[in-house]
């Protein structure tokens, strides 16, 4: 027989679920949970400077570990500050548990101090959510939250716990079992056989990998499939690293900022094998003109993704890894010399242009200089904007979970706290966050957290004193009318880092920026690496929003 408060029970259940680190910000309605945490010997609490930072730190941990990680906030503004990070986790299918304090049950609905309808606010941005009405309910709600977050297509789950429920005593006989993911849905072998026949008879097949391949831990099987059937392979932003960028079959990233040849190869495909991807508009451009001549095989664990955007000729609802392991032995080895040599010739004629790649003071050159200082063990995060697309195009990703970025929601401010989370989850790795001056400012307060935790995170700041991608679009599509995308007043990021207790180096005055960069990247601990870039450098090629992928500019 056990007896304890709801708050103590929450902490015990988290510990039993293997949680070692929680990112959060305390506040009135969360104080009983914080009091319970003070007694935990297992859980290290990372005090963040803003709840959004806590949400992205939890995401960074989860994106590296592949299992649910936890963020914690108080009621009202604490909960609303978490919302962006929760929505971001939903769109990228990241397992995360958000715990929020709430005003006492009797005060719910009275506009009490720091009361907000957290449950109602988070319905559309969570995979599921709970408003716990008794301490006893925690015995089912907390394990269910973990099970839901990590089963099938992963996602964020929120548990809102009123303060009196945290304080309420609860008695119970046994702790609930530690939960594991539900078994993945079973699928039809006949569909697998049909898919194998389609792959065999296709003349110009393309393999299209999405983030589901990473979530499922199936990258090696996807690469084997590509090699066995000689399939040119493109990856979404979320799947970069699933196949090494330097693999002979890799076409790199597709879509809005994909290389010309990649989009041209897709246009010629007669079979598209979509694995764990969802035909996002940034990847496929104008739907009707994407792979116009291709039959489609679509494999996804989320049944509602099948036929959602494009009708599939064969649709298989199942775990990507399980489906591929059934598909592989049924796919006959083929050489496809003609198709592969045609792909090679397109690659030769329409390669990704990387102007300035030898100059470390230009975007592509800086990215390559960073990559040259690191090996595949490093983790790369990015914020959102031009720098994100340049890194996605140019960084030599070679393994799953090497690349963390906000794909679906496109949240500026993601990269730095996610990097802190990644470093907490993998303390033996170097974590580099590519950021821009617009994005970095959106969670810059977490420099204090990084300094406090002494995490091995390096920010590579590409400073063009503007909101670069907005600036680019205004130049290209809005008659060069630059509105609210240039920062008139420069920010001294070096002083800011210094103020937060974080080391900072500036590549601008460095006589040999490669040497300064290498020294900064190889020194343990957090560091800001500042580099000015030209605001008139644009990301090319670019498919105008709403256009077909064949209509690339640049």
């Amino acid at each position: 027989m056990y007896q304890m408060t709801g708050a103590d029970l929450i902490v015990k259940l988290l510990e039993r679920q293997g949680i070692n680190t929680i990112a959060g910000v305390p506040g009135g309605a969360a104080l009983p949970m914080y009091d319970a945490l003070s007694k935990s010997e297992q859980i290290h609490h990372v005090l963040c400077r803003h709840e959004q930072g806590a949400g992205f730190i939890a995401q960074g941990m989860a994106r590296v570990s592949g299992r649910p990680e936890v963020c914690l906030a108080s009621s009202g503004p604490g909960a609303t500050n978490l919302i962006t990070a929760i929505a971001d986790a939903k769109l990228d299918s990241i397992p995360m548990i958000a715990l929020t304090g709430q005003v006492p049950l009797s005060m719910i609905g009275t506009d009490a101090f720091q009361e907000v309808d957290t449950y109602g606010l988070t319905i559309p941005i969570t995979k599921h959510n709970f408003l716990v009405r008794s301490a006893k309910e925690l015995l089912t709600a907390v394990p269910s939250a973990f099970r839901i977050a990590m089963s099938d297509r992963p996602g964020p789950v929120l548990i809102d716990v009123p303060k009196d429920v945290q304080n309420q005593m609860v008695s119970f006989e046994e702790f609930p079992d530690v939960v594991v993911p539900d078994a993945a849905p079973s699928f039809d072998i006949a569909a697998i056989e049909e898919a194998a026949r389609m792959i065999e008879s296709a003349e110009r097949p393309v393999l299209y990998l999405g983030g589901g391949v990473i979530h499922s831990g199936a990258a090696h099987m996807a690469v084997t499939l590509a090699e066995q059937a000689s399939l040119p392979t493109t990856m979404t932003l979320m799947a970069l690293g699933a196949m090494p960028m330097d693999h002979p079959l890799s076409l790199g990233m597709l879509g809005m900022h994909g290389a010309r040849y990649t989009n041209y190869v897709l246009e010629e495909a007669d079979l598209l094998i979509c694995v764990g991807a969802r035909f996002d508009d940034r990847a496929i451009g104008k739907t009707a003109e994407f792979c116009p001549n291709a039959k489609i095989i679509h494999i996804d664990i989320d049944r509602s993704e099948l036929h959602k955007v494009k009708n599939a000729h064969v649709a298989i609802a199942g775990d990507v890894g399980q489906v591929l392991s059934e598909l592989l032995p049924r796919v006959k080895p083929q050489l496809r010399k003609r198709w592969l040599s045609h792909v090679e010739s397109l690659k030769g004629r329409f390669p990704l242009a990387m102007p300035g790649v030898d100059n470390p003071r230009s975007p592509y050159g800086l990215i390559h200089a960073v990559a040259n200082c690191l090996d595949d063990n490093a983790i790369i995060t990015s914020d959102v904007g031009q720098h994100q697309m340049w890194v996605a195009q140019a960084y030599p990703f070679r393994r799953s979970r090497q690349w963390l970025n906000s794909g679906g929601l496109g949240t500026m401010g993601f990269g730095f706290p996610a990097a802190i989370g990644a470093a907490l989850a993998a303390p033996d790795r170097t974590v580099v966050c590519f950021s821009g001056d617009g994005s970095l400012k959106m969670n810059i307060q977490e420099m204090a957290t990084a300094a406090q935790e002494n995490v091995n995170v390096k920010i590579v700041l590409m400073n063009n004193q503007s909101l670069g991608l907005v600036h680019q679009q205004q130049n290209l599509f809005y008659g060069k009318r630059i509105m609210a995308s240039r920062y008139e007043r420069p920010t001294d990021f070096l002083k800011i880092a210094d103020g937060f207790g974080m080391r900072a180096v500036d590549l601008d005055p460095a006589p040999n920026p490669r040497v300064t960069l290498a020294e900064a990247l190889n020194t343990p601990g957090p560091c800001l690496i500042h580099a000015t870039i030209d605001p008139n450098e644009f990301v090319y090629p670019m498919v105008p929003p709403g256009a077909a992928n064949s209509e690339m500019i640049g």
Partner: protein
Amino acid sequence: MSEQNTNLSEFIPDVPEHNGFTKVVLELGVANHPGVMSHICGLFARRAFNVEGILCMPVGTGETSRIWLLIFEDERLSKMIKQVEKLEDVLYVNQHAGEHPVFGRLDEFFQ
């Protein structure tokens, strides 16, 4: 990224001006606790999928409820049903013809 795709209608079909005239009745088995209705109604509202009628009552011991929805069929219906089935609190979804008597008998209360 900053710019909205201006051509979302490419893959989220426009809300039909007339949702068609074929009515469909959906029968949902759901867990019975506060909040389930808002999960379900939110899905329809977000997609501007017009729900003509809603009925909800607990079943048996009250562990579960049954929700009846009267909607106009349009081409998004099958996608909509798949989204509803994904909700954790939804146990099953059955589709019936619009003539199902569950709503017809209520007419007298809406005169």
